[in-house]
């Protein structure tokens, strides 16, 4: 094959290619190829900073039906590096919509492609694991050259991306109703719904840049410290500020990337999952109560921890609090004394079910106990 590829094409680093038609902005883009199995919530997904540098394929065939509105984004922009769908909607149908998804992607400069083979792509990734990919809406080179260019794109393992997506300036999300707590939320790629969920419970949330030091955190005299989700490899992140927080016995809650950093602070290691969890239907079991939550996930890395009981850490004994029932992957950690805990999944949902929203209540309880 020496002829230029014709039409838009999605090229994987192992040479597999999927032909289709351009969707959204035209041009080319590179990133880690992942798939998302949610049937709703494409707008939230697109604006989730954790998808930074990833090309996201939607397994649900029809995307864009309800258009795009101004209420649902999880951040100020689209973060995905590229977007792969099967059947882009030709019309917008929702009383809340402001514009079409196609226009939105174009406006945001997000290169996408519509391909028939989204299922074949998913099966491929499931079998071979996450890999790099590129979308070329009007390629001029032969396929093998495109593959070569994909292979030159940076890999996700070892990538330090939080700083690229996080706020550079601190800002405050005021409590809704009476203020009960001050929370320092370190933005590693935080989603809009997260401070909102805390604000609903009376937290005044100070969102701090990813680089916030222990001193900067403590300067706001927080009742609790929160570490958000975010993109990249947790192995690259600096956990010294978190260690200091734990040392100082300030209540702590982490989500996703925050969970991985908590694990590392406790002395655990992290690893890359073969193809990650990205969707809104994952069963997570609370190890203590045995109850199952259907939860929203978006992670490619996970924490390695003993599942068979408590283990020692520099901050006292800890345990795995939640386990994924699909693959027994660690989904939550907790110090036995309860003052610090984290989950790998997304209690703020958006998109996804609200089963885990109680974790924000728990965080408030921990803070309130500490206040007393």
């Amino acid at each position, binding site marked *: 094959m020496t002829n230029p590829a014709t039409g838009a094409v999605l090229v994987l680093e192992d040479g597999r290619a999927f032909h289709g038609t351009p969707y959204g902005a035209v041009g080319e883009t590179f990133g880690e190829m992942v798939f998302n199995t949610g049937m709703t919530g494409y707008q939230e997904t697109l604006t989730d900073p954790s998808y930074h540098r990833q090309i996201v394929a939607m397994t649900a065939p029809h995307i864009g039906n309800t258009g795009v509105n101004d209420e649902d984004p999880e951040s100020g922009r689209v973060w995905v590096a590229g977007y792969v769908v099967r059947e882009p*909607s030709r019309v917008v149908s929702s*009383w809340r919509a402001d514009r079409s998804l196609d226009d939105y992607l174009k406006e945001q400069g997000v290169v996408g492609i519509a391909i028939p083979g989204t299922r074949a792509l998913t099966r491929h990734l499931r079998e071979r694991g996450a890999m790099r990919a590129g979308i070329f809406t009007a390629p001029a080179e032969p396929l093998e050259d495109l593959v070569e260019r994909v292979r030159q794109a940076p890999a996700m393992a070892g990538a330090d991306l939080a700083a690229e997506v996080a706020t550079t300036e601190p800002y405050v999300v005021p409590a809704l109703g009476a203020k009960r707590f001050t929370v320092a939320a370190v933005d590693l790629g935080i989603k809009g719904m997260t401070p909102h969920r805390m604000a609903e419970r009376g937290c005044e949330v100070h969102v701090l840049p990813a680089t916030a030091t222990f001193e900067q955190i403590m300067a706001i005299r927080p009742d609790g410290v929160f570490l958000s989700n975010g993109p990249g490899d947790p192995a690259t992140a600096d956990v010294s500020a978190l260690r200091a927080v734990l040392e100082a016995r300030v209540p702590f809650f982490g989500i996703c990337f925050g969970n991985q950093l908590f694990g590392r602070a406790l002395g655990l290691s992290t690893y890359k999952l073969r193809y990650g969890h990205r969707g809104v239907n994952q069963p997570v079991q609370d190890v203590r109560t045995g109850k199952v939550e259907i939860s929203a996930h978006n992670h490619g890395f996970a924490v390695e921890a003993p599942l068979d009981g408590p283990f020692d850490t520099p901050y006292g004994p800890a345990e795995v609090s939640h386990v994924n029932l699909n693959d027994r992957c660690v989904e939550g950690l907790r110090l036995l004394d309860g003052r610090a805990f984290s989950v790998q999944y997304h209690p703020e949902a958006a998109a996804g079910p609200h089963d885990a929203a109680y974790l924000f209540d728990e965080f408030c309880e921990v803070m309130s106990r500490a206040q007393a």
Partner: protein
Amino acid sequence: MPKREDIRSVLVIGSGPIVIGQACEFDYSGTQACRVLRDEGFRVILVNSNPATIMTDPEFADATYVEPITPEFVEKIIAKERPDALLPTLGGQTALNTAVALHEAGVLERYDVELIGADFDAIQAGENREKFKEIVAKVARERGLNAESARSVVCHTMDECLAAVSELGYPLVVRPSFTMGGVGSGFAYDETDLRRIAGAGLDASPTTEVLLEESILGWKEYELEVMRDRHDNVVIVCSIENIDPMGVHTGDSVTVAPALTLTDREYQNMRDVAIAVIREVGVDTGGCNIQFAVDPRTGRMIVIEMNPRVSRSSALASKATGFPIAKIAAKLAIGYTLDEIPNDITKETPASFEPTLDYIVVKVPRFAFEKFKGADQTLTTHMKSVGEAMAIGRSFSEALQKALRSLEKKDSSFTWAGEIAGKQDLLAACRVPHDGRLRTMQQAIRAGAGAEELFEATSIDPWFLDQLFLLHEEAQELAGAPELTAGVLQRAKRHGFSDAQIGEIRGIDEARVRDLRHALGLRPVYNTVDTCAAEFAAKTPYLYSAYDEESEVPYGTRQKVIILGSGPNRIGQGIEFDYACVHASFELSRAGFETVMVNCNPETVSTDYDTSDRLYFEPLTLEDVLEVVHAEQQTGPVAGVIVQLGGQTPLGLAQALKDAGVPVVGTSPESIHLAEERGAFGRVLAEAALPAPKHGTATTVAEALAVAEDVGYPVLVRPSYVLGGAGMAIVYDDETLTTYMAAQEGGHPVLVDKFLDEAIEIDVDALYDGAELYLGGVMEHIEEAGIHSGDSACALPPITLGSHDIKRIRAATEAIASGVGVRGLLNVQYAMSAGVLYVLEANPRASRTVPFVSKATAVPLAKAAARVMLGATLAELRAEGMLPATGDGGTLPLDASIAVKEAVLPFNRFRGVDIVLGPEMRSTGEVMGIDEFFGIAFAKSQAAAYGELPTKGRAFVSVANRDKRAMIFPVRALADLGFEILATEGTAEVLRRNGVRAKIVRKHSEGTGPGGEPTSVQCILDGEIDLIVNTPFGSPGQSGPRLDGYDIRTAAVLRGIPCITTVSGLAAAAAGIQAIVRGDVGVRSLQEHAQALRG
């Protein structure tokens, strides 16, 4: 939490006969439940009056009672079996209502039976609309959720209804409590409507309660399927969106899964409400469904209702997602939690998750209005469809087009050929919801209608409307393409266009399109329904076709048998055929074959992925079947395709399949032709010297009159090109024949047969292996010939035929089987008139009565047939023990139990339709009554089909002249039993002259008497009559007495009073009533019957 150890035996209640709103989905759920319970080591006791179900196969329960599902009979079963628990949530509204009645009567307490799956309070809270509204208000208030109920007022009397109007305004919705499928509900636009609908509704509701509700016509309608375990884990299995907005019953709507026009916020709000409601209602374990309406302008959300049990939608959701709701509900009921149950499909992941779909599922309803002349065909809040088809595609357009062609009905698919009607007319038609509205809309698009116009006419969501425009554009693209290139074809295929549609659009033959497509190497791939959008590997091969990238059909080396199912349920082709297909699959799998099922009916057991080694959820058209066969041939050896078990649908494909080189096993297509084509069959009969009614064919009035002259009146006439007895009539004179012929569409020949008056009709199911005949059963109809075999009651063994008659029947059946060349099952209908045995027709396939015969005689006919089709001989099957070592269904011992089959008719759905039975089949289902004595068996069949026969009170009798002599004896029997006899003048005279006291009642046509004496119809409406006997007069189209009868019968349906329309039926009923009055009616399980019969 592991399985409960404090329960050892469980009583499962089925849903009884197939009726509109409650069909074979409950066989699917009940079968799953019984399987689970037995696997878990429980003693399973089952009651279901429907013999055509898989669940009532003796191997699915320890004690199977084919007895009426009434509190009285179920109590007898409880007293005899003493179960520890009762599982009422898998048998539809019938089971739930029966459980409630047993609880209220104190039976459950008396026998210490625990309700599992849902408790009494939860059933009340879910089913009582008033209580339910309080619950919705409570969860909205306490949890700050966006949810409300439609404003409404509960009424117990008509006065309360009228008072409520001032508050709600017209139009409003009238809904009775505790009915299923919306019986008795409807829209009232003014007071006349209100009096009519609410009056009937008060009657239909077991609690004499109706709800009047503000109308939210035109809102978007959704449904969620929810499961909860006793650890309070809750999952949403599936979301379903109705394309037809509020105002059309979900069962009659075209629906799609998953929901396609909600953002995550709206969907999650719905999910939160569903979970909060199921918790508040207190459904501790099991499945339930909740319906929602969303205002498309504001997003305001209303909770319509919930059902605290599995339902038609849960069957659909199970098939749509691969998540077996009923099976899991049964496991939850016995104590497991969701996380302890593995997901069958992935094996590795648990059931405590929410399926995610990477395909689109579309369900379309199938109606049978052509059978119910005079019925209101507008789709509304009560369900009218008799079946449904489901299709899966990788896009909505693909799934929709597949679903429409799965309906197997002329004019169900979109078309771009032919005249286009005027746009305004089409738009006007679109305003009224009707069968095939999407196609009317597609035609409107052809006629130039715009999206706004269509939205204004239908309120259907713009996204779905756009999909119709998309299909229209694709069709135009296809029409305009200079050449059918691979690209053009592929594109059309991805939008679900069939070869036939493509051919129609291009003006070429379907076969040409197929050849071209195959030459271009363009074939569908088969994707797996895997519950997880390919995130995990699927272990259970449940497949659907799509023009997509990779095929997932597994390779194998075992010989495969492909069984073609029967498609959507319709009148004349229902669950009985699914039964035969499922049996074949079980048996062939046991015999070492790999079984492959093809079907598109989501309600059935055959489309349970657990039934066969592989399931293809596909339309049953030639194109779709050929592709499945091809895919299977590519991946292993195919021994053959079975077309004989799924009814007329697969049978019709036999020749074309064979022509395409597909191995068809069993009776050959040529032999099928011999039986199906009149001329050829006539020669078979002539050869065997078997008489058939004299007949001829006519195209003109003159020809028809000549044939009638020749064969003699009365004659049975029917158009030759229709199947299933549609358009049949019995004609007694020249005048009527002339009218009938004039009404026929020009040019089509009409078959004119001598109508055998007062003949006994006999139905036979037999097996033939080329050498030996096994007479499965000889059924004697209760009603005389002229009433379609599917609609008449029958007895097995026959009650008035002697061994000499059976001998003749056996010889005739054998002659037909060998003359036609049957390998497998054969059904023959005979009419015995004046000692002559006439052959009415022979069907070289499984018949509707196969399950009934199998159950009555304890011989698995369909299993045996499948084996014969694949080469086994009857002698071998006798040796194996599958068939009795000696004898057959024609040699049953004299003391064998008698089984009576009774048909169930849907007249309560189609008010205004005459309920008189005729040669055209109209029943939707059947029940069986079985007992040592015919009278009791018949009484049981009546109790199961219509409610118990009355044992005292007033009987009203009005019969046609020809029946007057024959009715004397049975009416006297009623009088002797203590019934007060009322009769119209002529009937009363005859009765009095014969010493039966009868009071004269005025005919309806005579009007109220001078002293205010009521007419018969008024008496019926006033509830003064307990039993009605009315046989039809004269011929169709006549007025006077004929119309009188019509009014009597209509009133009977309205009040739900037993109405017997034949004298033979009356005689049977009298015997039944006598039996009930005389003594205790017992219950006996099929296993006990079989023990008595086969030892």
